[in-house]
């Protein structure tokens, strides 16, 4: 319905001074990438031993679980919330799932186990979603509550005994190699479960950018009241996004178990803040409504790399915390610096 519009308007699009800075301002994950590259270069200079395929493989493997968590956290952040219960969800599903399989169906097909774990996580996520929606309080508060709740239920009523010998199918899944090669008399293995991360990332990206739900999530992140006024069903969105995050957490949990060849109900809980930090380092605002999947992955890689090069660089363990802490501060400051340039 574009008809002849009369006087040309005074309003014109906003031109920005500097193209590069503008780009950085709009896609902060570029900063993350820069940091990542910088670190890798620095480390390889300090210790060329870092330049090996095995480094890449190890970093890749190490970032699977955190990456899955981060994707979930990112969805919630995008919608303007915060979730700290996902580690509890992961521990809950992975342990009770393993227990279930071990006791009742030791040779259940792994695909089924994965699906079941994902579903279980989603279920706990739905609890989060409903609580957040009906209690009308910030999700941070609710999920602190559910974290204690889930973990409490798990340890108090389901069990605390570590499962050291997994059901065979799960153990096999953990060992199943995707790529395997020898270097210096050592076999380097990129496990099959690594594929889960890129897959999940792709699906998440598609969901956020190609479906109404995805846009709705960002809309809620922009301003929940307005979104509701415009006809978005907050209930659907809340339930969906927490279910999605929960599903990812459940999946991450089972993979964590399979990879470790043991199911430890005490695992994971306590790492949530680091995951959130990774997502924020990936360019998502803690205040919600912004961020990208790529940025999230980069943020995770950044954290994993920093944590895994400490020995490489030869930092004595007494000093490692200081270094990591200082790095987080520097990275954050660098971020703000680049953003401020505008």
């Amino acid at each position, binding site marked *: 319905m574009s008809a002849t519009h009369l006087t040309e*308007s005074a309003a014109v699009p906003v031109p920005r001074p500097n193209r590069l800075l503008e780009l950085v301002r*709009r896609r902060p994950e570029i900063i993350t990438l820069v940091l990542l590259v910088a670190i890798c270069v620095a480390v390889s200079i300090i210790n060329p031993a870092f330049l090996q395929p095995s480094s890449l493989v190890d970093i890749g493997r190490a970032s699977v679980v955190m990456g899955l968590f981060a994707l979930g956290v990112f969805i919630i952040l995008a919608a303007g919330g915060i979730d700290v219960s996902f580690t509890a969800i992961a521990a809950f599903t992975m342990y009770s799932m393993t227990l279930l399989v071990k006791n009742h169906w030791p040779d259940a097909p792994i695909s089924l186990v994965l699906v079941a774990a994902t579903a279980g996580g989603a279920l706990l996520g739905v609890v989060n979603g409903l609580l957040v929606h009906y209690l009308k309080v910030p999700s941070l508060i609710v999920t602190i509550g559910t974290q204690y709740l889930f973990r409490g239920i798990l340890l108090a009523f389901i069990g605390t005994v570590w499962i050291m010998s997994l059901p065979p199918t799960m153990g096999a899944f953990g060992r199943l190699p995707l790529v395997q090669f020898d270097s210096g008399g050592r076999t380097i293995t990129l496990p099959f479960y690594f594929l889960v991360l890129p897959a999940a990332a792709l699906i998440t990206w598609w969901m956020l950018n190609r479906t109404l739900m995805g846009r709705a999530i960002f809309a809620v992140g922009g301003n929940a009241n307005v979104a509701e006024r415009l006809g978005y069903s907050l209930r659907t969105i809340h339930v969906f996004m927490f279910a999605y995050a929960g599903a990812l957490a459940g999946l991450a949990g089972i993979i964590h178990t399979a990879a470790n060849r043991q199911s430890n109900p005490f695992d994971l809980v306590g790492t949530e803040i680091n995951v959130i930090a990774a997502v924020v380092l990936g360019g998502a605002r803690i205040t919600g*409504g912004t961020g990208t999947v790529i940025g999230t992955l980069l943020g995770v890689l950044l954290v994993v790399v920093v944590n895994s090069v400490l020995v490489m660089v030869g930092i004595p363990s007494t000093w490692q915390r200081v270094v990591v802490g200082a790095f987080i501060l520097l990275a954050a400051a660098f*971020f703000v610096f680049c953003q401020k340039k*505008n």
Partner: protein
Amino acid sequence: MPRPDAAAKADAFLELRGIHKRFGGVHALRGVGFTIEPGEAYHLLGENGCGKSTVIKIMSGAHAPDEGEIVLEGKVYYSLTAIQSLSAGIETVYQDLSLLPNLTVAENVALNEQLVASGGRLARLFDRARLRETAASALATVGLPTDRAFLGTVVSDLPLAQRQLVAIARAIATRAKMVIMDEPTTSLTRREVDNLIAVVERLRSEGVAVLFVTHKLDECYRIGGHAIVFRDGQCVEQGPLANYTKQRLAELMTGRRIDAERYRTGAPMAGELFAASGLSLLPNVRDVSFSVRKGEILGITGLADSGRNELAMAIAGVMPATGGSLRIDGKAEKIRHPSEAIKLGIGYVPEDRLAEGLFLDKSIFENEIALVVRDLANGFGVVDKAKGRALADKLSQDMRLNTRNLDLPVGALSGGNQQRVLIGRWLSILPKLLVLHGPTVGVDVGSKDTIYRVIQQLAEAGMGLVIVSDDLPELLQNCDRILVMNNGRVVAEYDARETDEDQLYKAMLVSKPVTQPAVNTETAR
């Protein structure tokens, strides 16, 4: 829960019957009813807080009425959901614009069209090509650019005027049957308003009903159509606009006489109070020089992108000047931050009272004393609340707030009363110079009257005032001199007694080369 109803008028698009709405204690709507016919224009008029926004929110499904019926195309509903209302073709431009700051222009304009098409179900792919088309055509209609760059701009990066146009574009992006606009022109320039009025014309010619809410009566007359006058949540008058004079409407709204003559009573006193020479805030303000005397009221106008906003912010220290010099009481001073401006006795009432002025969740009391908490503190650094309350009480009386309850959250006040609280806050420190940026945006005739009278009293008392506004009548009624800005420079200066709207308007439009738009100040992460 629709049910067939014989009584419903066949040709009416929408009819409200005996609608009641209560918010806790407040009885916002007391049995209002009116009929909306296709292709007609309606003007919902009334003072702040009389129920206009509420009745709108009921039609658009944001609120459910407590009593009454909504007859929509012959079907009777007791309440509507947002999706029902939207799918029925009711589009709304909300007073707060209701934009999603983190999404792009295209998404803000056209995403809802796809949401409504899917009946509110979210498990759908969304069609980006269609998104761009819809958005582009709607933007073109309201006179905004349609290039990819603009479509992809994040709304929070846009100046207020463009945001308002984007909100309007969203309303007309779909094949609407009725478009509701709650104070859509508050931050639009004259030219954008002209454009909007043309849009309204075309909508009507396409059989779309238009419901207008505004406090600028002259706009109503330029559009024409029917008047629906509210007072205290009741519909006190309906009929063709032509049957009423401005005077009469003002009376109907307020229930009292208001004669909008020239308010300016006193005259400037001797002695320069404030002077700016060669003031610049690149790229928006270039080499501006002017001065204000004690008791003088200086008006500054211009198009939204003329730099008038930035000039005001530079004086207030919100956006520190990049060049030039300021003199206050003859002393050269620098202003790099609002606190410095305040120390120098310069007050600033921002344009966007909700985002920049008020602490909405906090009480009137706290909002009123915000500037003087330090002065209220005694030797032990303890704030003397009794003294503070006395002050706040006096201020709210001076500003004639419609409530005596100082503990009410300011968010619960109408725009008019909110603005009074904000101005009152500045009176608590009686600045030498008070810069009022759009002092009566979204404020009804009654409140305007009050605010203008206060302004004059302040001038009498020797305060210098600068009114930055695009409401020309307002400037003509209140100022001694009026500066017109264009493309960052002062292009003309008039004695308010000797000029008129057309002269000012021409000066605003003189040959406009490439324009530098207002860059809005977002505090990132």
